Each structure stands twice: as C-alpha cells, then as structure tokens.
C-alpha cells in the first residue's frame, strides 16, 4: 500500500517535471526540472529493487544537469527567466508525434502479454549485477568503457578552439588553395613546386 502510494507520487512527479522542462521560462530551470524527472525515475528504480541503477542515475544526472545549467548561462539567451520564453517550431506536428508515441508504447504495455517472473526476494540484486559486470558481461562493460573513451577524444576534437587547418571559428580552409597560389613557380630539382 505504502509502496503503491510512493510509486504513484514519484511517477506523477516524473511526468509532471518532464512536462515542465518544456514550459519553463528559463533554460536553467528547465535543466533542473529535467533533473527532478530523472531523480523521480531513480527513486522508482530503487522501489523496483534496482538500487544500484537508481542511485547511479541520480548521481550521474546531478552532475550532468549542473553542467547543462552552466551551459545555459554561458550560451543561451534569457537564462534568468525574466521574460516569458517559447522557442518552438512546428508545435502541432510535435504534439501529435508525442501523443502518438505515448499511445503506441502505452498500448504495447497494456495489451502485450509479457512473462511474469518478478525478481526473487532474498538475493541481493546489486551483488548479482557486480558479479555479472565483472564476469559474463565483462565484454559489454569493457566496450562501454572504450566507447566513453572514444567519446572523450571526439568531444575534445570537435570542440577544440583550433581545427585541423587553423582556428576553428574561421571554418575549415583547405590547404589546396595555398598550392594553387604559387602554381606558376618552376619545379625544383626533385620535381616539387
């Protein structure tokens, strides 16, 4: 009974704060509404006895949404929310797409027949997950780590202030233009221009 009430409270909070993300006047507030939504889903995961996943979701999103809020202040207009803000395009199409995807997935959940095999009590799921991570699913775990490393390198390469052919904010300048400029020179002894 208490479990059900807690679940519905946090489910309502997750959906409500998710909706508020796109109705907030300030992008910083939007970032923190999104954090509330993630935290509510994290609590629901804890209620489902996936304690590790729920807590790591809250931890990860706490950091990520703080970075996102800093981003908002650095880049975006109206971070303080002093003016009303709606920045949308093709709003009706987007509403229809959102409602259709909600109805489709909800219908799948309501009418599809899933096997009923709840997690057994008495076994610590966190311990089993740890054994799985460093046992049978070691390859998945390692691949995720390598993917994150590749992401770090790619993120630095993309956002670096200096690109391959010069400053990044000047756009890419192909080096071939430099060759065309002195194309009339005599080739040297080795045939180079």
């Amino acid at each position: 009974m208490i479990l059900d009430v807690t679940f519905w409270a946090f489910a309502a909070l997750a959906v409500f704060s998710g909706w508020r993300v796109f109705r907030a006047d300030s992008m910083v507030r939007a970032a923190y509404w999104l954090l509330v939504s993630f935290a509510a889903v994290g609590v629901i995961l804890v209620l489902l006895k996936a304690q590790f996943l729920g807590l790591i979701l809250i931890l990860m999103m706490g950091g990520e949404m703080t970075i996102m809020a800093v981003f908002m202040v650095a880049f975006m207009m109206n971070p303080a929310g002093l003016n009303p803000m709606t920045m949308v395009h093709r709003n009706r199409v987007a509403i229809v797409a959102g409602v259709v995807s909600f109805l489709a997935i909800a219908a799948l959940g309501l009418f599809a027949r899933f096997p009923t095999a709840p997690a057994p009590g008495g076994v610590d799921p966190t311990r089993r997950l740890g054994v799985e991570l460093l046992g049978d699913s070691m390859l998945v775990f390692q691949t995720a780590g390598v993917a994150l490393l590749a992401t770090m390198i790619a993120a630095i390469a993309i956002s670096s202030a200096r690109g391959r052919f010069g400053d990044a904010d000047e756009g890419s300048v192909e080096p071939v233009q430099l060759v065309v400029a002195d194309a009339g020179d005599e080739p040297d002894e080795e045939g180079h221009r």
Partner: protein
Amino acid sequence: MTLQALIVVAAAIFGIGVYGALSQQSFVMIMMGLELMLNGTILAGGTMWAMTTGGSPKGQMLVVVLLTVMAVEAAMGFALVIGIYRVRRADITEKLRRLKG
C-alpha cells in the same frame, strides 16, 4: 505498482521527450528532449528487469548500457553545440539552413 502502470508512465515520459526533441528550436533544449526519451527508456528497462526476467542481472546490464548511451549523447551534444557556435554563431536550428561549413 504493476508492469502495465510502469510502462504507461515510461511511455508518458518518452512521449514528452519526443515532443520536446521535435518542437524545440534551441540545440540544448533538443538535447533535453533526447535525454527525457532516454529517461523513459531507462524506466522501461528497469521495469522489464524487475517484472519479467526473474531477477537475471542481464536485464540490469541493458540499463547500464542505456546509461552509457546517455553519457555519450550528452558529451557529443555539448561538443557539437560548441563546435557549431564557434563556426556559425548559431544556437538555434533556424540559423542552420545549410550543412556546409
């Protein structure tokens, strides 16, 4: 707290995310829509683990992979926002009418 109720809640979060990702003009708000979609997916994955797998840790592995996807999405999204802003001075989609740099 039944499987059906959990999936409906996950679908609602996912649907709001679809709306946000399609309707918002600002790049960072589009990213928020994508994150909300992943939030619904994580809830659905955790639900499936808790209700249908008999506690097999492989179900939780799927959610771990989803968390990785979310981290990758956020990092690459932020990097692309910075990269586009540097070259094009654009922070909303309407300022990008062509792909050429």
